[in-house]
């Protein structure tokens, strides 16, 4: 199981959003850190195949990002997660399960399981427009997990979650990282500190740090701020 990102670039007119990033990701949780505008979301969109790169390639076990097979193993929670206000949570998940190519009986089973996991069972039949911000975010996480993805891309997944939900979510991600590649971005450094095996730091479209991080390595937040400051100084 390997996600291969090779010299991936995205340029908008005069701005380079992602600048020749190359990565080889294997099973585990990868935490992506970076300030606003560093290129995290652009990188994640290209990894998910919903944004065409200016240059470079993305593949998973030799499957190109544009292939249907690649999309079949992908789970994605976008930063700006959109939903259908008139759909119930259950309908929303069943609809996305159909889009992900899951058979109806399996979709029903998986939907029930994820509604339970994300503590949305009680409101499963209520319209999404009645959900709180945290509930919507949990629904977003549930939809990303519908197809048991081998590659899970989460853009700011903990936004809107309360501290208790965040702890539960961290545990879930850690479990998922045992069998799949999880790439998550967040502003909350402590999230990454607790769950990511590997840390990636982006600045101005470039990858400025990539490596394993343990508690023995010190405080990640301090390291991250120093790294950014160091880069700024340079």
């Amino acid at each position: 199981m390997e996600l291969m990102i090779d010299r991936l670039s995205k340029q908008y007119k005069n701005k380079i959003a992602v600048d020749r990033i190359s990565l080889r990701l294997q099973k585990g949780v990868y935490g992506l850190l970076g300030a606003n505008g560093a290129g995290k979301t652009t990188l994640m969109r290209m990894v998910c195949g919903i944004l065409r790169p200016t240059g470079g390639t993305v593949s998973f076990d030799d499957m190109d990002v544009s292939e249907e097979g690649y999309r079949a193993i992908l789970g994605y929670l976008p930063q700006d997660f959109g939903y259908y206000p008139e759909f119930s949570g259950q309908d929303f998940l069943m609809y996305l399960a159909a889009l992900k190519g899951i058979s109806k009986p399996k979709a029903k089973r998986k939907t029930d399981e994820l509604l339970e996991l994300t503590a949305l069972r009680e409101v499963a039949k209520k319209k999404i427009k009645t959900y709180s911000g945290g509930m919507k975010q949990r629904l977003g996480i549930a939809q990303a997990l519908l197809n048991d993805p081998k590659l899970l891309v989460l853009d700011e997944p903990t936004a809107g979650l309360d501290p208790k939900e965040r702890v539960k979510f961290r545990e879930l991600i850690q479990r998922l990282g045992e069998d799949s590649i999880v790439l998550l971005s967040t502003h909350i450094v402590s999230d990454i500190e607790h769950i990511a095996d590997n840390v990636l730091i982006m600045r101005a479209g470039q990858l400025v740090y990539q490596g394993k991080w343990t508690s023995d390595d010190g405080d990640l937040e301090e390291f991250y701020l120093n790294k950014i400051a160091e880069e700024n100084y340079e």
Partner: protein
Amino acid sequence: MNNFGTIFLYECKKVFLKKIVLISSLLCILTIVFSLTVPFQGDYYVDGVKLDSNLNMYLKDKAYAEALDGRIIDQALIEETVDAYRKIPQDPDRHYIVTEEYQTFARPYSEIFNIIRSYLNLPTSEVMYSWEPNEKEVYESRRANLEKDWENLRLSDGEKQFWRAQEEKIVAPVTYRKTHSYNEILSVLQTVGLAVLMIISICLSGIFSGEHQRNTDSILLCAKNGRLRLYLAKIAAATAFSAAAATLFFAAVLLTVLIFYGADDPDASFQLIYSHCSDPITCAEAVAIMFVSLLAAAIVTGVLCAVLSEVFKNGVAVIAVMTALFILPMFVSIPAQYRIAAQIWNWLPFGFVSPWNIFDSYTLPIFGVHLTPWQSVPILYAILCGVIAGAGMAVYKRAQVKGR
């Protein structure tokens, strides 16, 4: 699993469950009922003087029409009609309708008189006072007027031959049948058709653009079936919605007509209500043709609207373009001298909801066979739908999530 059926049902749910669908449908049905019951509302005035209530006028005319039902419009009936009208005194200061003579003698024959007048294409006063009743002349005049029309429309010799052969199949002299219900259907078809197309444009304008504006495109486009199958499911949902809208509103017209005007003879000759038509069809067949034509126009409009929704990624822009297409035929008509352009213009969906375009004399010659508008346009629309949907697929396959 491609799950096309499930995806299609969810796409239908997204489209059909919008509030705008319910509101616009109710408004449209109310408008249909209102326009079809106008003949029963208010009073009938001639030169500012109230003659009777519209309801009484209608009931009287209906009774007269029923009395004539089944009679052949031959020399005897034509003479009877003209004789009855000749009893009306010639008075340039008074409208003939208000005279006692018209109400007593002529009005029972008004239906036949109107048919004679439209076949002869002569002014009312001339038919009333100076024309000598002649059955042969009535039917030959109609044919002669059609020949003139065909000349003006720049029909080819082959087309003229085709229509002459069609005319031979029309039985003459024609048997009169009460056709009030069919008249009403014919009179509201264009308005209802345009309303259907506008509702389709409004309700489908967000079928693709809504996903971009709602930010749901991110999760749809990266799903296994989120490209080709989702695109086809959305196009199928647009088609289903368009067909449902056309069926619902046409059914509303039929039901309203049935309730207020009753069921007239389905075998009545269509030429009784539309003398310019050379198709040898009955009124019931004409209604079925109008429904199929509306259905075809609705579906092609729905597919176009869906594709524009992906191209513009903005529902308002789609509605603006569709409104322009909707308004344009009201102000622009292409002269018959530009034969091909005029034919294409008349056959565009917003024009093809008009009965006079559905039953016009332009044909599509294919391998020596002439297809009438209602035979050829649905086929052309099916091809057009394929072309538009194909172009839309090329756009959708390249869809990306940018900005935000």
